[in-house]
């Protein structure tokens, strides 16, 4: 009976119901915004739908057709319990085709403790499911109107790692300092782990790996500094994480361990018409076992992106971005990768580059349309990275374009 019930309640039905409920909640809260906008309770949300097309790769879908798998819906609430404690949570529904698994998620659900504050210091602790707040755009990567473009720089914000990188269950601390002499300094530290569902594991390690992958450790720290009254802000971050793969009895792969370390430095300039930002990073990806017992690979990858936007008119802006990523800094053209696999994996899976142009138009202070075009090169940011798919991705050069409408409140 239970089995038949489980079969009747298919995941796609659950997702469909979830997105309908989210949309209704967004509509209800928008219509009654004045009623809920008291000082203790805040409710916000967003709805975004777009059209996207990727030619020459399975980045969005396997048939490379025009797709409407560009849906993002979210609603959040924050309630101030008293002067010291606050609770907050956000639920989202995402559909990005092959980019990440389709479905609902609890994005964050946390208790904030305002541990200490005075005129210049603020120290807060967060417990529960906390978001990654360490990279330039990590905390708003799913928020259509708060990120720089529809597809954010894959060199740092790789969609295949979205569910692991977006945050985890654990705790975070935020220390903030500001004065006239030093400016504003923010220090963030978080520790937690993500539970990886089977659907998410398919994106990360591929469908041929039948076992389970567990996120064992995730410790991250970052520090940001804005000089007094400056339009510049600078930041650095570090991440240390590890994963374990446990094979099932009949499996195409073996028990394995993965270590992923990630170090970034970033800068942003916010002028009246011009904005610039850049992030540079180095990552270390260690694989032990998994492909066969005794296998060991320890690679250091490097990458960066620079982007600029210009506000042409009050509501209309243009942007451009240039990204470069090398999975192995000692094999920038991927020749060694191809050689090590006997030519099964083409050399262009050793890097990922993107040159992008985009524009956005604000209809009002709460609605926008964005459009962009990407010239991609390489396959190092195509999921699953541990099992490259050269049949579906048989082109070194591929293109993506997207248009997305968004509304928020």
């Amino acid at each position, binding site marked *: 009976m239970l089995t038949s019930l489980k079969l009747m309640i298919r995941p796609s039905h659950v997702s469909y119901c979830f997105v309908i409920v989210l949309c209704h909640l967004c509509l209800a809260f928008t219509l009654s915004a004045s009623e809920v906008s008291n*000082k203790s309770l*805040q409710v916000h949300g*967003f709805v975004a739908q777009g059209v996207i097309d990727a030619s020459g790769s399975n980045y969005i879908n396997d048939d490379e057709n025009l797709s409407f798998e560009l849906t993002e819906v979210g609603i959040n609430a*924050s309630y101030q319990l008293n002067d010291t404690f606050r609770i907050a949570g956000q639920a989202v529904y995402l559909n990005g085709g092959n980019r990440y698994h389709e479905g609902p998620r609890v994005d964050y659900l946390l208790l904030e403790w305002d541990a200490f504050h005075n005129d210049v210091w603020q120290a807060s602790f967060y417990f529960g499911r906390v978001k990654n707040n360490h990279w330039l755009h990590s*905390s708003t990567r799913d928020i259509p109107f708060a990120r720089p473009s529809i597809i954010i720089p894959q060199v740092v914000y790789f969609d295949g790692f979205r569910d692991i990188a977006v945050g985890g269950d654990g705790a975070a601390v935020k220390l*903030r300092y500001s004065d006239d002499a030093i400016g504003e300094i923010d220090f963030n530290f978080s520790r937690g782990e993500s539970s990886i569902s089977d659907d998410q594991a398919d994106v990360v390690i591929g469908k041929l790996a039948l076992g389970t992958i567990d996120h064992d450790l995730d410790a991250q720290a970052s520090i940001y500094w804005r000089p007094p009254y400056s339009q510049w802000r600078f930041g650095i971050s570090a991440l240390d994480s590890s994963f374990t793969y446990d094979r099932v009895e009949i499996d195409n792969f073996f028990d394995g361990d993965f270590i992923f370390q990630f170090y970034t430095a970033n800068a942003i300039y916010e*002028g009246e018409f011009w904005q610039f930002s850049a992030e540079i990073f180095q990552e270390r990806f260690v694989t032990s076992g998994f492909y066969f017992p005794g296998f060991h690979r320890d690679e250091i990858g490097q990458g960066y992106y620079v982007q600029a936007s210009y506000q042409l008119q009050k509501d209309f802006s243009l942007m451009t971005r240039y990204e470069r990523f090398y999975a192995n800094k000692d094999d920038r053209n991927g020749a060694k990768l191809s050689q090590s696999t006997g030519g099964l994996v083409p050399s262009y899976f050793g890097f990922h580059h993107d040159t992008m142009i985009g524009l956005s138009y604000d209809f009002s202070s709460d609605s926008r349309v964005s459009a962009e075009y990407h010239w991609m090169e390489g396959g190092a940011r195509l999921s699953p990275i541990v099992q490259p798919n050269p049949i579906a991705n048989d082109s070194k050069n591929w293109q993506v374009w997207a248009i997305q409408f968004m509304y928020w409140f």
Partner: protein
Amino acid sequence: MSFYVNYKDEIIKAIFFKIAVVILLFSPQVYAINIISNITADTPSLSVTQLRRIYSMRQLHWQNGTPIVVYVLASNNPLHQQFCKQQLRLFPYQLDRIWNKLTFSGYGVAPIEVATQQELIKAIKLTKGAIGYVDNLSEVKDVNVIKIDD
């Protein structure tokens, strides 16, 4: 000689006055911005840095311990835009970015947005610890007016 100097000064003043009038006539509307708070805030003055800290949600309590409740007009409202640039020395989109990041990551809350100055004044009067801004003080009563020190 002194008569000549005084006469020259008067001409220069007249020219500057006329230029100022022409600039004002052809400029976007300029508002006189006044910072007001609920009487529980009990703060006669703030520095620009303190005001900026309050609006970027880095200072959440008044000196007397009362929680600060920040009210704003919509980001495309001319008064809000002038308040950001003139008083906070920030562009409106910078504040939007800070608030969105706090709201949609769970790490904080955004100010409460109201549609009109009348709503804002009413909210300031009724909400303990509230702060906001208006362009005309003549009809505003029962609130604390905060002087901003440069």
